[in-house]
């Protein structure tokens, strides 16, 4: 029991909360950036531009089928060979954004495909250009359909930031390791509190997504 009380001293908890802050910071920046890049890539793949869409589509498929951990390693240890040496947090954001953009591109593309083709035809028949029809008619409907998939992608992104601990990004998992590194008796208490912190953030998001989905249906 004493172990648990010692492990949950305010200094340790505050340290873990700082880690959680970094985790959320990395996740939010990465998700915003990858939403933008993912939308562009998804639309390119959907648009079936000769050759170009094919190549983009292939790159999306390749990256989606690689472990994120490999991409994190490559960003942090491989990129310096090309004369670009990012710091740990930017490296994590770069790796996550690269990977998540490809994941989100697929979500966006299937969201667009799920919108009835008649919507596009009607919009074009009204004299809208392709871009206008996309922006004003198709995308608003597509994004609405994609909310659950996007939120669950965001949840996996938050969970995946824990992998960045391998390049010593000071996020929650890393801070947890520092705390239980002081004393092996802290291992179980620290894992419990880390699990609770991740769970609260991720579960709250999944409840939010269910609520939005419910409201819109």
């Amino acid at each position, binding site marked *: 029991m004493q172990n648990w009380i010692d492990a949950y001293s305010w200094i340790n908890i505050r340290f873990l909360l700082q880690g959680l802050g970094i985790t959320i910071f990395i996740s939010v920046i990465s998700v915003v950036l990858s939403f933008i890049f993912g939308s562009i890539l998804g639309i390119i793949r959907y648009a079936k531009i000769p050759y170009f869409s094919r190549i983009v589509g292939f790159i999306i498929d390749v990256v989606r089928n690689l472990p994120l951990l490999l991409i994190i390693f490559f960003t942090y240890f491989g990129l310096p060979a090309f004369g670009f040496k990012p710091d740990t947090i930017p490296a994590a954001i770069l790796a996550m954004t690269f990977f998540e953009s490809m994941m989100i591109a697929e979500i966006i593309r299937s969201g667009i495909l799920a919108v009835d083709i008649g919507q596009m035809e009607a919009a074009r028949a009204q004299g809208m250009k392709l871009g206008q029809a996309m922006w004003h008619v198709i995308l608003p409907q597509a994004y609405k359909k994609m909310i659950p998939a996007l939120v669950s992608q965001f949840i996996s992104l938050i969970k995946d930031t824990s992998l960045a601990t391998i390049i010593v990004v000071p996020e929650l998992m890393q801070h947890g390791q520092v705390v239980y590194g002081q004393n092996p008796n802290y291992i179980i208490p620290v894992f419990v509190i880390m*699990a609770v912190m991740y769970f609260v953030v991720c579960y709250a998001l999944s409840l939010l997504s269910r609520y939005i989905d419910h409201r819109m249906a």
Partner: protein
Amino acid sequence: MIKLLVDNWSAFISGFGWTVLSSIVALFFSLIIGSLFAILEVMPSKTARVIGNIYVEIFRNIPLLVITMFFYLVIPLYVVKINGFTAGTIGLTIYTSAFIAETVRSGINSVDIGQMEASRAQGMTFWQAMRYIVLPQAFKLVIPPLGNQFINLVKNSSVLAFVAGFDLMYQGNAIASTTFETVNTYIVVGVFYLVITLPISYYMQHLERKLA
């Protein structure tokens, strides 16, 4: 790059083997555990549903790395000495089983409720109806999403590198740190992963199109 591959062929192949082994073992057990919890989630008893729900929600919302490291650090400390490969595979199994439970449950829910009612009306017990009537239909529906779960499982097996699980990622790091050919090593490791994941991914896309 070819030279790197040839020089370290045995390390790459052994890593590849451990990755495949861990993925298949974890898939096998998480299919069983996942299906059991999926059935719990649709049982008439409220207690069973709550237990199923709690399991799924807990393990879906905690990072795989936290689960894996927990098993790697805690079991040897208090229960029995296990190596990184075993701890990693247990972590993978538990994490994946929560996702498989979700997938199978949605499959069971999309089987017409009349199927269950009709079987029960024929005098079958809940478990008989589940086993012979509902599950066979449900599994057919969830093959594409299960395939995607398997791809995730193969990719996730890279966390074995954290616990010295001898997998592809672990071997890749070892090779990168001895040869200093970081970029080439990681490219080769990536190709090895793609050899497993890309064909499954394309096949599942094909299946999905065929079923739709």
